[in-house]
């Protein structure tokens, strides 16, 4: 793959990840809730989606959070952790 198509490929993956995170927020977050993210403040569902769409710092933090969780689900880390408290 040459450099141009590699960049285009990375951009495509990035857009797909954005779409994935937006879809997850739309499905998972009720409109009466706000999400507080550290020092960035509190955000409604629509505000979070806008930040992810804009690919700004807040949007990137949200995406990292989603990807971290998806990765933990996929590699078994989440299940192992949950099983460690299963009998409590």
């Amino acid at each position: 793959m040459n450099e141009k198509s590699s960049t285009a490929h990375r951009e495509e993956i990035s857009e797909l990840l954005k779409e994935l995170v937006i879809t997850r927020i739309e499905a998972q977050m009720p409109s009466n809730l706000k999400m507080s993210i550290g020092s960035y403040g509190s955000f409604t569902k629509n505000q979070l989606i806008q930040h992810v769409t804009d690919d700004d710092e807040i949007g990137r933090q949200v995406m990292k959070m989603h990807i971290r969780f998806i990765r933990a689900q996929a590699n078994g880390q989440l299940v192992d952790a949950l099983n460690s408290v299963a009998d409590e």
Partner: protein
Amino acid sequence: MNKGVIITLPRHDDVTEYISQFSKEIIDEAQSRGIPVKELKDKSCSLVEFEKIVNGLNYKLIVLNGHGSEDAICGYKNEVLVQIGVNEQILKDKLTYARSCDAGVKLGPEAMKLNDCGCFIGYELPFVFYHDSQRETNPLKDNTARLFLEPSNAIPISLLKGNLAKQAHENGKRFILKNIRKALRQKTNDAVGFAEGLWNNYMGQVLLGNPEAVL
């Protein structure tokens, strides 16, 4: 050093209002054990007041509620209370729980450099929680926020009970995992979202300094 707890309660936006109100459980635990508590509320959560109280009372446990960054923790209206290169040594040999974002990345390690018997429990990632906008006038009745803030409270509460720093750190993490299980058992649409936020806090929580540190 004296047995006692200093707790910052900035309350200048909805985030600090929530974490300050939920800190009532920490204060109640200390009082029930006869451990003196000094609250730094609102405007008294300033740099001048913070340094005066920490140095003057010399209480061992410090609970910092407030916004933060990798190198600082803030108080009322984001006035910096502790910062690398300025006064991080104020946390030396204290048991510090910092409910502030990212302070575990640089400030925590720096504060613990000359530390002997203290610890710093904080976060290397932004601390995340969901809250119900219909409960904002009465945060303690917000069971969504409780899912996130109770495990966080468990850390200073565990220290107040006389547990070692490593036990308090572990208790906090286990509480998060139990709440992830609780959320996922609900099988509602928001369950996975809650689990994601809780997992973020689980992965971000760090213990620095002396793991055997005790109040």
